[in-house]
């Protein structure tokens, strides 16, 4: 006889929700998303744009804009060994990170390939929060092997978060009563009581402009959104969707997971993943600290100099080099890489892109084969690309404390 099953009532089973999930701000974001244009991010509906992507993008450069970051994956690391554990996992020196600060980080495999990138919040001596675009708990638990005093919790659904970005963002927060926020330095964290609860504000973001991220209990989500838009009206507030955020981040010189790089743990083909050096993240690889995962491989790679380069490109003409193949010559004879992200930048009036270039061609000429369309008809042109070392957009106000009011 087969082993007996004991059926339970269908309602007592925790069936997963089928279909797309709603973030704590959904009632508000969906009201503003007048065309119901959504993408799916970690299973959650994320606005592609609300009313007009260009207008919303300009708000990040000209006024302020709000992006719902709640679908981001958030993990809490707690315990006396947590600093040592994280220090072994990420490439930067965690022991040097002060309480109430944030540090952009990557973590790699033993082979020195990037698993993911994210922001590490030091909340206390023995407590951190790590935010990343994709789920990563399995890797964190593997990385914690040998550290008995570390507790790692997925708090993604317990924390709602908003990014408020743009020149008037500080002024708006002040007007809302977040006193002292103007003294918050880049990558610093401050906490405020608000509406019977607590809001944590970090001076961080993904637009390269003055901006903050707000972290709160999901119960405060709707009142916070309402307060921001109520008070924000006079500060030019706009909701921000994926499309506009993607433009802002590219101008600011930030890379995007699953766009500019492919996480090592998901990668099937050899070399379809990346090292931090390839991604231009050498500046956060710290060889002065003690051992960390991937160190030996990264030291070898750095010494060899033999790694591809993700470079910022300024491309002639005004046709975005989306999906372009890159060449060492204008006749497109020698293929040397490809474009990972591209756009026309409305604020800088430049045709910009990220290109991943073979090591030995990194210092030579770069040409992009660009396809563009006019009334459905396709045209091809070969455009000269100039390598640029600084981000296209990095206004002074993003670094100033206190920042200007607009």
């Amino acid at each position, binding site marked *: *006889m*087969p*082993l*007996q*099953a*004991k*059926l*339970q009532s*269908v309602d007592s*089973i*925790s*069936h*997963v*929700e*089928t279909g*797309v*999930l709603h973030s704590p701000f959904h009632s508000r974001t969906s009201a503003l998303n007048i065309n119901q244009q959504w993408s*799916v991010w*970690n*299973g959650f509906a994320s606005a592609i744009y609300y009313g007009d992507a260009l207008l919303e993008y300009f708000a990040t450069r000209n006024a302020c804009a709000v992006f719902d970051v709640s679908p981001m994956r958030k993990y809490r690391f707690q315990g006396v060994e947590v600093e040592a554990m994280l220090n072994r996992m990420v490439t930067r020196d965690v022991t040097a990170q002060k309480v109430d600060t944030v540090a952009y980080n990557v973590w790699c495999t033993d*082979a020195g390939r990037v698993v993911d990138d994210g922001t590490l919040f030091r909340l206390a001596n023995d407590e951190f929060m790590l935010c990343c675009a994709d*789920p*990563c*708990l*399995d*890797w964190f*638990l593997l990385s914690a092997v040998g550290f008995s005093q570390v507790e790692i919790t*997925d708090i993604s659904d317990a924390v709602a978060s908003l990014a408020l970005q743009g020149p008037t963002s500080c002024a708006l927060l002040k007007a809302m009563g977040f006193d002292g926020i103007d003294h918050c330095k880049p990558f610093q964290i401050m906490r405020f009581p608000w509406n019977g609860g607590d809001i944590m504000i970090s001076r961080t973001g993904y637009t390269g402009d003055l901006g903050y991220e707000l972290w709160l209990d999901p119960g405060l989500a709707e009142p916070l959104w309402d307060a921001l838009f109520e008070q924000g009206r006079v500060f030019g507030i706009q909701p921000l969707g994926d499309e506009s955020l993607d433009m802002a981040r590219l101008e600011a010189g930030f890379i995007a997971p699953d766009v500019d790089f492919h*996480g090592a*743990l*998901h*990668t*099937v*083909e*050899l070399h379809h993943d990346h090292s931090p050096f390839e991604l231009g993240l050498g500046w956060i690889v710290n060889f002065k600290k003690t051992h960390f995962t991937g160190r030996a491989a990264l030291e070898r790679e750095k010494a060899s100099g033999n790694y591809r380069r993700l470079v910022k490109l300024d491309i002639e003409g005004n046709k975005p080099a989306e999906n372009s193949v890159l060449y060492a010559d204008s006749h497109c004879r020698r293929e040397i890489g490809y474009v990972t992200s591209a756009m026309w930048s409305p604020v800088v009036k430049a045709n910009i892109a990220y290109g991943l270039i073979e090591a030995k061609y990194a210092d030579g000429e770069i040409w992009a084969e660009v396809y563009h369309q006019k009334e459905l008809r396709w045209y091809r042109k070969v455009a000269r690309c100039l390598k640029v070392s600084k981000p296209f957009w990095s206004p002074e106000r993003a670094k100033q404390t206190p920042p200007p009011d607009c």
Partner: protein
Amino acid sequence: MNRTYDAIVIGAGHNGLTSAAYLAKSGLDVLVVEKNDYIGGAAVSRELHEGWLYSNCSYVCSLLRQSIHRDLDLTRHGLMIVPYNGTTNFSRTGDYIAEYPDHDMQYREIRRHSLRDADAVHRYEADLMRYARLIRHFLLRTPADPTSFKPRDLGELVFMAKKFAGMGEEQVLEFIRFMTMSAGDYLDEYFENDLVKTLFSTSSIIGTALGVYSPGTAYVLLHHVMGDVDGAVGAWGLARGGMGAISDAIAGALKEHGGEILTEAPVAQILVRNSRATGVVLENGDEIHAGIVVSNLDPKRTFTHIMDQKDIPEDLYDKARNFKIRGSSGKVNIALTGMPDFPSLPPGHMLRNGTFQFLDSLERMERAYDDWKHGRWSADPFVEMTQSSVWDPTLAAPGHYFVSCFIQYCPAEVEGGWTPEKRDAFGDTVIDQISNYSPNFRDLIAHMEVRTPHEIENEIGLTEGNIFQGELTLDQLMFNRPFPGYSQYRGPVKGMYMCGSGTHPGGGVSSACGANAAREILLDLKRPNIVPEDDVDE
């Protein structure tokens, strides 16, 4: 009957038909002789109960080489492979774990059982996919003889080395390790939750006389994800009209090129004169002559049943005798008069259309195997139930259903021999298993076909009912399939060839064995190669 042909193919399984189609397409005069009154072997659809069409043996398709589908114009000959999805694995608690087609839902479903495993799936899938992409390169190629210095073998070895090197040194070592592992141990390396493991484990024991913790089953897992549906590697589809539609379409191509099929014509022996195959003699005494004789039968049957021991080298006879081809699977095909209820799933839930399994731990699977080792069918069997007709309206009238159940484990021999009563008792165990989770299932049954390895052997001629024409263990794969020294489709005498699943790349409805065999035959005949080589996009 005393016509002479250029080539005779013994057996109208889909591989035999594929070989024959290519030989005919090349211009040869070809005859396929089949013992049954229907064609297709284990890729067959039959209406055993009026109004219901069964995929009697194989029931889902992924391995069929797209380049052959295209090259033989099988779509025009009536073939369509349609996708289907959603697997639910019921646990004894009444809960379940499911495989959703949507990435995010799948993530949430696994997360419901284990937070950690939900993330580990990416790592697991990427690693398995790496190996799948590797071996896909070799499906439509003749294995190299690693001891030969012939340019062709050396070229093939270089090809192989390049593909391996393409994975990187570290991964080559991982792959070698993987090939020797058990599926259970492999899954244990990634996952902590038993239900999660069961969800990914089941294809490791399909058709296999091993337990999930027996070394070598990790490869069987891979064998089931190396196929694809339209480039989605690892995906499975259904043949519209049942699996027989595949054989029928290939037969259509064969006939279009002038080939003939003779059914109800069991071959008694392959005729050999002066170390050359000269034709076949049927059980009714008829002789048919041809310079080329191709056997679609499994290697054991080919060399121990239809060849005279005197015609073949002693060591080959020995290898054939020792060939591992143990039967371990049963099949129960069921005609239902309504859709069965599975009360664990909410009414109308998307998973209701999918495949059902009834398993909640690897240990239970191992226990099911223990029964087999003792010569009994599993008291608590693993059942994979595919609701084929939900996706294919040609199989049953609206409101009626055909479900195909694949069962592990069922031995080829039971104490005192198989009898119809024992066969039905085996079938009852399967229905008991399903009824555990679907209280109204039994009441809906209009007809069922219960097949133990005994029936499978008697009807299709698969020795011991082994579904792959020989086990898929490392000692019987690649250049060892079926035996070392015989992996290039050639038999021991001139003009005699093998084209069944017992040859590389092994079991499953792939057409690859048949196509590879045809390529070798054409090479020996010094005719231009017309068989597509590569099926893999790079």
